[in-house]
C-alpha cells in the first residue's frame, strides 16, 4: 500500500491534528487527577474522589472553575508580554508532539497513514528546537509580571533549561550515532532491528532521564516555581485560564518528554520479543496493538514523573547547576566519544547492525554504568558549595598546622 497523497493527505492530516490535540488535552486533564490521587496514596490519603466515580470528573470541575475565575492583570505588569507568555509556554509544549510516531502505520482506503502528525525528515531536531522555545514562556512570564519572585523564577527557569538542554542534546547524539538518522520513524525501526536503545545506550538514557526531569521543571528540579521559596515562581501573578495554560504546558511537556524517552530508548511503538508488529502488511489490529504498547510505556514514564515528584526533595540551585554542568555534561560528552569509538570499532570489525552489535555495546555500557554509579555514589558529587567551602577550610587548616 502506498502512503496517502494529494487532497486526502491534507484532510487526513487535519483529522490527525484534531484527534491528537483532543486526546492530548484529555490525557493531560486526566493526568492532573492521577497526579493528585497518586500523591495522596503515597501519603496514605485518598485524594480527590468526590466528583464522579473515583473523582474522574475532578478535572472537568477544575477546568470550569478556571474558566469562570477572574482574570487578574497586575497594574505594573507589561501587558503585552504578560498576555503573550502563557501562549508561548502552551504552544510549543503541545506542538512538539507532532513528530512522535505513536503506532504502526494505519491502512486506510486512501493509502497508508503514518501515525505521527508530521513525519518530518528532521524529526528529532524539530523536537530539540521547539521544546526549548518553551523557556520563553517561563522567562517572559517572570519578567512581565514585574514581581521579584516571578523574575527569580523566570531567571532560574532560563538558567536551568539552558544548562540541561546541553546534556539532553548530547545524550540524544548517542542515539543518533547508533540510529544513523534523525527521523523518528527510522530511530524506532533501528531499535526494532536490534535491541531497545536503553540497553546499548544505558548511560545516555540515564543522563537523558535526569535532563528530561529538569527540562520539564518537575521535582526534584522545579526551581522555577519552588513554592517554598518563590511563592509560585514565574506564574505567581497569573490566574484563571492563563494560569491553567502554564499548568497544561507543564503536563504536556511531561507527555512529550515521556514520549521522547520511549521513542529514543524504549523502542517507540515496538512490542518486545516479536517481529509481528513491525513487519508489513500493516493491519488495523497491528495499529491498535502498537498504539497500546506505546501508550503503556509513555504512561509508565508519566507515572514515574509523579512517583519521583512525591519522593525526592528539591535541589538547591547551586546543586542543580553542579549536577548539570559538572556531572551530566561530562558524562554525556564522554559517552558520545565512547559510543562513536565503539561504533567505529564495530564497523571496522565488520559487525552488521543487529542484535549482536547492540549486545556488544550493551557490554560496554554495563561497565561504564557500574563505574559511573560507583563514583556518583561514593563521592557525593552534588554536595554543593557549602561542603566545598568546608573542604577548603580543612585544607587550609591542614596547611597552617603543617607550617607550624
Amino acid at each position, binding site marked *: 500500500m502506498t502512503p496517502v497523497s494529494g487532497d486526502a493527505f491534507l484532510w487526513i492530516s487535519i483529522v490527525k491534528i484534531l484527534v491528537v490535540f483532543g486526546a492530548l488535552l484529555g490525557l493531560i486533564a486526566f493526568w492532573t487527577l492521577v497526579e493528585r490521587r497518586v500523591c495522596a*496514596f*503515597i*501519603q*496514605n490519603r*485518598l485524594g480527590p474522589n468526590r466528583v464522579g466515580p473515583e473523582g474522574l470528573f475532578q478535572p472537568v470541575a477544575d477546568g470550569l472553575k478556571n474558566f469562570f475565575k477572574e482574570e487578574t492583570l497586575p497594574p505594573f505588569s507589561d501587558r503585552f508580554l504578560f498576555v503573550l507568555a502563557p501562549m508561548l509556554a502552551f504552544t510549543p509544549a503541545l506542538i512538539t508532539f507532532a513528530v512522535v510516531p505513536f503506532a504502526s502505520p494505519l491502512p486506510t482506503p486512501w493509502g497508508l497513514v503514518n501515525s505521527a502528525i508530521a513525519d518530518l525528515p528532521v524529526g528529532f531536531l524539530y523536537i530539540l528546537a521547539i521544546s526549548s522555545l518553551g523557556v520563553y514562556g517561563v522567562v517572559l512570564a517572570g519578567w512581565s509580571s514585574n514581581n521579584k519572585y516571578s523574575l527569580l523564577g523566570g531567571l532560574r527557569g532560563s538558567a536551568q533549561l539552558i544548562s540541561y538542554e546541553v546534556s539532553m542534546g548530547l545524550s540524544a547524539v548517542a542515539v543518533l550515532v547508533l540510529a544513523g538518522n534523525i527521523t523518528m520513524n527510522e530511530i524506532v525501526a533501528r531499535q526494532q532491528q536490534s535491541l531497545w536503545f536503553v540497553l546499548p545506550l544505558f548511560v545516555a538514557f540515564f543522563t537523558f532521564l535526569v535532563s528530561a526531569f529538569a527540562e520539564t521543571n518537575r521535582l526534584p528540579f522545579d526551581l522555577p516555581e519552588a513554592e517554598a521559596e518563590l511563592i509560585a515562581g514565574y506564574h505567581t501573578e497569573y490566574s484563571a485560564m492563563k494560569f491553567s495554560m502554564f499548568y497544561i504546558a507543564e503536563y504536556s511537556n511531561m507527555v512529550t518528554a515521556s514520549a521522547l524517552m520511549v521513542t529514543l530508548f524504549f523502542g517507540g511503538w515496538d512490542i518486545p520479543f516479536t517481529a509481528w508488529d513491525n513487519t508489513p502488511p500493516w493491519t488495523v489490529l497491528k495499529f491498535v496493538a502498537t498504539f497500546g504498547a506505546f501508550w503503556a510505556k509513555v504512561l509508565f514514564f508519566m507515572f514515574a514523573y509523579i512517583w*519521583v515528584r512525591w519522593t*525526592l526533595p528539591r535541589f538547591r540551585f547551586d546543586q542543580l547547576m553542579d549536577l548539570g554542568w559538572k556531572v551530566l555534561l561530562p558524562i554525556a560528552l564522554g559517552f558520545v566519544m565512547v559510543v562513536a569509538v565503539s561504533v567505529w570499532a564495530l564497523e571496522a570489525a565488520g559487525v552488521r547492525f543487529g542484535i549482536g552489535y547492540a549486545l556488544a555495546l550493551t557490554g560496554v555500557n554495563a561497565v561504564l554504568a557500574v563505574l559511573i554509579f560507583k563514583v556518583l*555514589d561514593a563521592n557525593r558529587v552534588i554536595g554543593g558549595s557549602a561542603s566545598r567551602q568546608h573542604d577548603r577550610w580543612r585544607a*587550609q587548616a591542614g596547611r597552617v598546622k603543617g607550617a607550624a
Partner: protein
Amino acid sequence: MAIAVKTLRRPEAESSYMRATLKGMALTFQHLFQKKWTMEYPEQTAAPDWKLSGRWRGTHRMAVTEDGKAKCVACGLCPQVCPANCIRLIPGEDEQGNRYPLVYEIDEFRCVFCGYCQEVCPEEAIHVGVHYENAEYSRDGFVYDLERLMKQTHEVSSLWDPSDPRGE
C-alpha cells in the same frame, strides 16, 4: 584563620545520594498500597480506631433533674467566669424561694469552649460536651436557649483532671 569545624565522616551507605534515592522510591511505592487513613467525613463519622477524647470541650449541655427541670439554680457564676461573655442569664425565683433561670442562653458562636462554666458550676448543671457537629444556616441558630441545652444528649466532657494529667 578559619573556624575549626568538626566533620563527621559518615559511612558511604548513609551519605550516598543514589542509594538514598532508590530507597526513597521503594518506600513511596510501598505507600501506594498501604492502608489509607482518610475518614470520609460526612459519610463516615466513626471508625473503630478513632474517637474523640473524653476531655473534648464541645457543644454545651444542661443537666436535668429527675422531674425534668434544669439543674441550674441561676447563681450567676457561669456568666461571671465566662471569658467570651457568651452566656446570658436572667434569674427568677418561684413561690418556695428556689432560684431558677428565667432566661439561659449560650451563644455557641461567641463561646471559646474553655470549659470554665462547667468547672465553676456548683450544681454540676452546665457542661461542655464531647460533640462538635453544630453547624447552622444562620447566626441566630447558634444561640442555644435553655430548652435546647437540656435536650442535648451527647456525653459531657470529663475536663482535665490535675490528679490524672494524662487521662489514664
